[in-house]
C-alpha cells in the first residue's frame, strides 16, 4: 500500500475538496462573480462523478477505511447528483454569503462520500460528522431568519446528542469486539456469545442513525429543519444525507451485526435489532402520516411525510437476511430524487410569493404549469400511485416484507399510513390544480436551468416508475 494508491482511490473526495477550496478562493478574489462559484462547483462535482466511474471497481484500503465497490460507486454518484441539484437551487436563493454556502455544501458532500465508501467505524464516524457540521450551519444560514435560527439550533442540539449516542455505541462495540472493521466485527459477533454491553452498543448506534434518517421517535428536528432552513439545505438534508444514512445503517446492521437480526414476525418474535427497527418503522409511519394531516405549511408537511417515509424505507431492513436491502436502497434513492424536486419547486414558489404555506400554492397550475405538473408528479409518487416511481418502490418494499407472512401487520400499517397520506398529498394537488390563484399574484418566473432540472427530475421519477429495472438492476448487481 503506497500513497499513490491512496491518492488514486481518494481522488473523488480530493476533487470535491479542491473544488470547495477553489470556490472559497474565487469568492475572496472576485466577490461579485456569484455565477462563477456555481459553475466551478458544478464542474467539480461532475469531475468527481467522472473519476468515480473511471476508478477500478474493487479495492479495499487500510482494512475497510476506504472501500471501492460497485455499490459504493453507485451511491457516491447518486450523492454527487443530489449535491449538483442543490448547487443549481442556490442560484435563485437570496443567500448572504453565497460562496461559503456552496463550500459548506461541498464539504458535506465529502462527508457523504466517506460515509458511503467506508466500512470501518472510525471513518464512518468522521464521515457522519463531516456531513452533520456543515448541515447545521447550512440550516441556520440566513442569520436574520428566526425560523432558520430555531431550526438550526434544534438540528444542532438533537444532532450532537445523537452523535454522542453513536460515538458511545461505537466505543462499546469496539470494547467488546476489539476491532473497528465492520467485517471483523461481524465475524466476532457471529462466533462469540452476545454480551449485554454489545446489545447496548447496537441500540445506541441505532438510535443515533435513526436520528439521521428522521425516524420516530427521533424525528423532532426534521419538520423544523425542513421548514426553517433555506430550500436548498432542505433538499440536501432530505436527499443526500438520507440516502447515505440508509446505506450506512443497512451496511452496519447487515455486515457487522447480521447475526443479531432477530425476527419481527407476529408469532415468532426473536430478540434482535429487527423487531426494534420494526417498532421504529411502525411508529414512524403512524406518527408521520397522522401529524402531517394537520400541517398548513408545505415544507413542514414534507418534513412529517419524511418521517413516514423513513418508516417505509426501514421496512426493507427488517426482512430476514439481506434481500430487503435492495428494496430499501431503491426506495431511499427515488425518495431522494422526489424530495430534491419537491424542494426545488417549493423554493421557487417561495422566492416569488414569499411564503410556503399550502395556500401559497393555490392555482399554481395557472401561474406556472411546469412547476405544478412537476410538483404533482413528486407528490403523487410520494403517495405511491402508479405509474410513478413511488408506486413500484412501495410495492417492492411491501413484497419483500410479505415474504414472511407473519409480518403482515407491518404491511397493514404501511398501507394504512399510505391511505392517510394520500389525503394530504391530494389536498395539495387540488390546491395547485383546482383552486383559483390569488388575484394579485402574477405568473411565476423561472430560469431555464431550474426548468431543465425540474423537468429532468420529474422525468426520472416517471421513468423509474415505468422501467424500475434501470436502477434496480444496478443496485442488485452491486449488492
Amino acid at each position, binding site marked *: 500500500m503506497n500513497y499513490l494508491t491512496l491518492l488514486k482511490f481518494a481522488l473523488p473526495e480530493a476533487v470535491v475538496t479542491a473544488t470547495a477550496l477553489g470556490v472559497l478562493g474565487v469568492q475572496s478574489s472576485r466577490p461579485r462573480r456569484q455565477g462563477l462559484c456555481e459553475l466551478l462547483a458544478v464542474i467539480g462535482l461532475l469531475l468527481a462523478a467522472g473519476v468515480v466511474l473511471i476508478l477500478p471497481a474493487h479495492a479495499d484500503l487500510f482494512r475497510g477505511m476506504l472501500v471501492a465497490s460497485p455499490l459504493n460507486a453507485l451511491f457516491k454518484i447518486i450523492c454527487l447528483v443530489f449535491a449538483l441539484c442543490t448547487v443549481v437551487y442556490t442560484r435563485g436563493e437570496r443567500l448572504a454569503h453565497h460562496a461559503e454556502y456552496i463550500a459548506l455544501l461541498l464539504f458535506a458532500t465529502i462527508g457523504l462520500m466517506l460515509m458511503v465508501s467506508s466500512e470501518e467505524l472510525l471513518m464512518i464516524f468522521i464521515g457522519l460528522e463531516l456531513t452533520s457540521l456543515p448541515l447545521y450551519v447550512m440550516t441556520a444560514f440566513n442569520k436574520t431568519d428566526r425560523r432558520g435560527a430555531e431550526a438550526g439550533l434544534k438540528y444542532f442540539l438533537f444532532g450532537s446528542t445523537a452523535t454522542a449516542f453513536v460515538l458511545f455505541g461505537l466505543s462499546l462495540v469496539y470494547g467488546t469486539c476489539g476491532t473497528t472493521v465492520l467485517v471483523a466485527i461481524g465475524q466476532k459477533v457471529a462466533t462469540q456469545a452476545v454480551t449485554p454491553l454489545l446489545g447496548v452498543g447496537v441500540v445506541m448506534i441505532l438510535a443515533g442513525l435513526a436520528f439521521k434518517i428522521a425516524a420516530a421517535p427521533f424525528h423532532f428536528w426534521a419538520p423544523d429543519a425542513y421548514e426553517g432552513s433555506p430550500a436548498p439545505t432542505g433538499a440536501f438534508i432530505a436527499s443526500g444525507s438520507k440516502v447515505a444514512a440508509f446505506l450506512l445503517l443497512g451496511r452496519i446492521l447487515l455486515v457487522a451485526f447480521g447475526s443479531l437480526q432477530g425476527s419481527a414476525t407476529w408469532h415468532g418474535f426473536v430478540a434482535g435489532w429487527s423487531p426494534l427497527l420494526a417498532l421504529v418503522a411502525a411508529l414512524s409511519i403512524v406518527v408521520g402520516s397522522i401529524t402531517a394531516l394537520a400541517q398548513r405549511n408545505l415544507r413542514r408537511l414534507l418534513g412529517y411525510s419524511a418521517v413516514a417515509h423513513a418508516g417505509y424505507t426501514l421496512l426493507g431492513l427488517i426482512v430476514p437476511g439481506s434481500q430487503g436491502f435492495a428494496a430499501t436502497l431503491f426506495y431511499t434513492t427515488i425518495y431522494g430524487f422526489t424530495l430534491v424536486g419537491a424542494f426545488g419547486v417549493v423554493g421557487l414558489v417561495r422566492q416569488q410569493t414569499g411564503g410556503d404555506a399550502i395556500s401559497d400554492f393555490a392555482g399554481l397550475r395557472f401561474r406556472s404549469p411546469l412547476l405544478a405538473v412537476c410538483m404533482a408528479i413528486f407528490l403523487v409518487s410520494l403517495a405511491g400511485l402508479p405509474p410513478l416511481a413511488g408506486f413500484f418502490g412501495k410495492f417492492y418494499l*411491501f413484497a419483500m416484507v410479505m415474504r414472511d407472512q407473519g409480518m403482515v401487520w407491518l404491511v397493514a400499517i404501511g398501507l394504512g399510513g399510505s391511505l392517510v397520506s394520500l389525503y394530504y398529498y391530494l389536498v395539495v394537488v387540488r390546491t395547485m390544480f383546482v383552486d383559483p390563484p390569488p388575484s394579485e399574484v402574477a405568473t411565476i418566473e423561472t430560469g431555464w436551468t431550474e426548468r431543465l432540472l425540474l423537468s429532468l427530475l420529474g422525468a426520472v421519477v416517471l421513468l423509474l416508475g415505468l422501467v424500475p429495472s434501470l436502477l434496480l438492476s444496478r443496485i442488485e448487481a452491486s449488492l
Partner: protein
Amino acid sequence: MIAYTIYLTFAGAVLVLLVPRAFAKWVALLAALAGCGIAAIAFLQVSDFAQFQTIIRVPWVPSLGIDYHLAADGISLTMALVTGLIGISSVLFSWNIENRQNEFFFWLLLVVGGSYGVFLSADLFLFYLFYELVIVPKYFLIATWGSTNKAYGAMKLALYSFFGGALVLIALLAAYSTGGSLDLQELSRFHFSSQFQFWAFPVMFLGFAVLAGIWPLHTWAPTGHVAAPTAASMLLAGIVMKLGAYGALRVSLNLFPEGFHIWSGAIAALAVIGIVYAAAIALRQRDLKFVIGYSSVSHMGFVLLGLATAQALGAGGAVLQMFSHGIIAGLLFAVVGRMIYDRTHTRDLTVLPGLALNRVIPFAAFTFVLASAAAMGIPGFSGFPAEITILIGTWRAYPALVIVAGVGMALTAGFMLRALKKSFFGEPIPTQCPDYAPISVPEKIGAALLLCVTLVFGLFPNLLLERILPAVETMRWLNR
C-alpha cells in the same frame, strides 16, 4: 392486436395535451373510436374464447418475476368492448366542455386506457398498476369539473379506491410470497392451503368489492357519481365499478376457489342486501342523480350475486350484467347529467316536474324512457337476459334469495318510474316557461349508440353469452 386499445388510448391522452384547444375533443374522439374499433374487431374476430390467450409477454422487472403480460378471453373481450363504447359516448357527452378541455380529455382517456389495461392484464403487478392508475384521473375529473360537493366526493372516491386497493395488495402479496409467482395463470394452478385461502380470499374480494359497490362499502358510489361531471359519472358507473367486479372474478375467485366456496354465502347475502337496500334508498331521493347513483349500486348487487352462485349460468349472467349495466348506467347518467342538468341546472325532483321537460326536450324524454325500461329489466333490452340468467343461477344455489332479489327488482321498477314521471312528465307551471337549447348532434349520436347496443344485445344476448360462457366454464371455482 387488442393490446393496441391500451397504447392508442394512452397515445391519444398524450396527444390531447399537445394539440391546440379546438382539436382536443376531436383527438379524444378519434382515440376513443380507435380503441373501441379495435376492441370490436377483436370481439368479432377472436375464435377461441375459452382460453386466456397470451397476447404479449416480455420480462419487465426480472428480479421480481414481473412480466409485461397481456392476455384475453371472452370475458376480457366483452369488458374491453363496453369500455370502448362508454369511452366514445363519454367523449360525445363532454362535447360542451369549455373549461380546460385538453386536461379534461387527458384524464378521461387515462381512465379509459387504464381500464383496458385492467381487463387485459395477465400479470398481477401489471393488473394492480392499471387498477391503481385510474385513481388520480378520477380524482382530477371530479375535483376540477364536478358539481355538488365535488371536493368531498372526489376525495371520498379516491380514498375508498385506495383502501380497496390496499386490501387487494395485502392478499396479492401474500399469494405472491406463497405461490412464488405473479403470473395469473400460474397462480391459478397453484394450490393454496385452505387455511390461507380462508383469510386471503375475503380480504382480496372485499378489496375489489369496494370498487364494485358492495353493501356496506358502497357509499362512495352515490356521492362520487353525483359530484362527477357527466362523462366521469358515465365512466365511474360504466367502467370503473366493473373494474372491481372484474378483479373479483378474474383474480380473487381464480386464485382462492376454496376460500370462495367458504364465503360465497356471505357474499350472496351482502349482494342481496345491496340490491334491496340501494333500491329502497333510491326510492326516496330528491336529487335525480342520487336516484341513478343508488340504482347503480343496486344493479351491481346483481353482479355480485351472480358471482356468488358459483354456477356457470349465474357467473356468465354476472358478466353479461357488467356489460349491460355499463351501457345502461352510462345512458342514464348522460340523460341526467348532460341533457337535463346542463340545461336546467337543477336535478331536484321537486322542481323538475314543473318544467315539463318532455315538451321542451322530447329527445331526452324518449331516451330516458327507453333507458329506464332497460334499467327495469324489460325484455328486449340487455338488462333482461342478464338479470334472468343471474336469477336462474341463483335459483340453483340460493332459492330463497331469488325472492328477495325479486323484491329489489320491483323496487327498481318503482324508483325508475317515479324518477321518470317526476323528471319528464310533470304538470307544467306556466310561470316557469323555460327555453332550453335543443339536444345537440353529439348527444344524439351518443344516445343512439348506447340505445342501439342495449337493444341489439337485448335481442341477441347470445352474441355475448357465447363468448362469456366458454370462458367462465373453464374456471375452476365453478360448482359442477
